[in-house]
């Protein structure tokens, strides 16, 4: 499980790769929060899921946790490029109503 961030204009991009489950999530949770804290004041964060080969419901909890943190800074959250498996998990949990897919 890996996580990388980059800043472009007013957007923070967070790229997730690998397999996101209950075992691997701890590794990326802190790094995601540090990236968010370091970039507070931008208008939005885009989580790019293209590199995620697997995600179960742990991913839902992880994304909602980051959503709440971003909200504190007044930042919007978006998701892009989930694969079919992640898309199914995100769809049935209704997550796209909080963090739209772009």
């Amino acid at each position, binding site marked *: 499980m890996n996580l990388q961030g980059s800043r472009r204009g007013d957007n923070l991009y967070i790229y997730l790769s690998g397999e996101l489950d209950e075992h691997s999530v701890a590794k990326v949770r802190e790094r995601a929060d540090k990236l968010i804290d370091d970039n507070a004041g931008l208008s939005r964060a885009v989580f790019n899921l293209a590199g995620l080969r697997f995600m179960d419901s742990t991913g839902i909890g992880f994304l909602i946790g980051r959503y709440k943190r971003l909200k504190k800074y007044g930042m919007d959250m978006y998701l892009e490029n989930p694969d079919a498996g992640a898309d*199914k998990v995100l769809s049935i949990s209704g997550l796209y109503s909080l963090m739209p897919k772009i």
Partner: protein
Amino acid sequence: MNEMYLKFPSLSENEVFARNAVAAFVLPLNPTLTELSDVKTAVSEAVTNAIVHGYGGAAEGWIELKCRTDGDLLEIEVADRGRGIEDVARALTPFFTTLPGEERSGMGFTIMQTFMSGFSVSSAPGEGTRVKMSKRFGELEANAG
């Protein structure tokens, strides 16, 4: 017809092992990518529940994983001898979690029910939890579109 049985300690690194072992086991049934992903996700949910809830995140017990294929049907059983579930009906409610402070989504059982063809759970406090799931390959997606 084929069968397999795995027994492993409740360590979180076994989540990836368990789902990939089941994926490898069902490959001869020529599952579609969606079917394979459904099975892997459901197994990951069941095993994670056993580790996090059954054994409270401690490597204190064993998880048993049984699989059986017959024709295009896969049957899976995930069992722990951990704490058990006090109120199964409540545990099945979407978004319900007993660990809200830990970023748990409460969607594990909902995902198992949605992604698999058959699902049942039996549990009693102090006696552990047994989840049975089945998947029929080649089934038309009930919720397609």
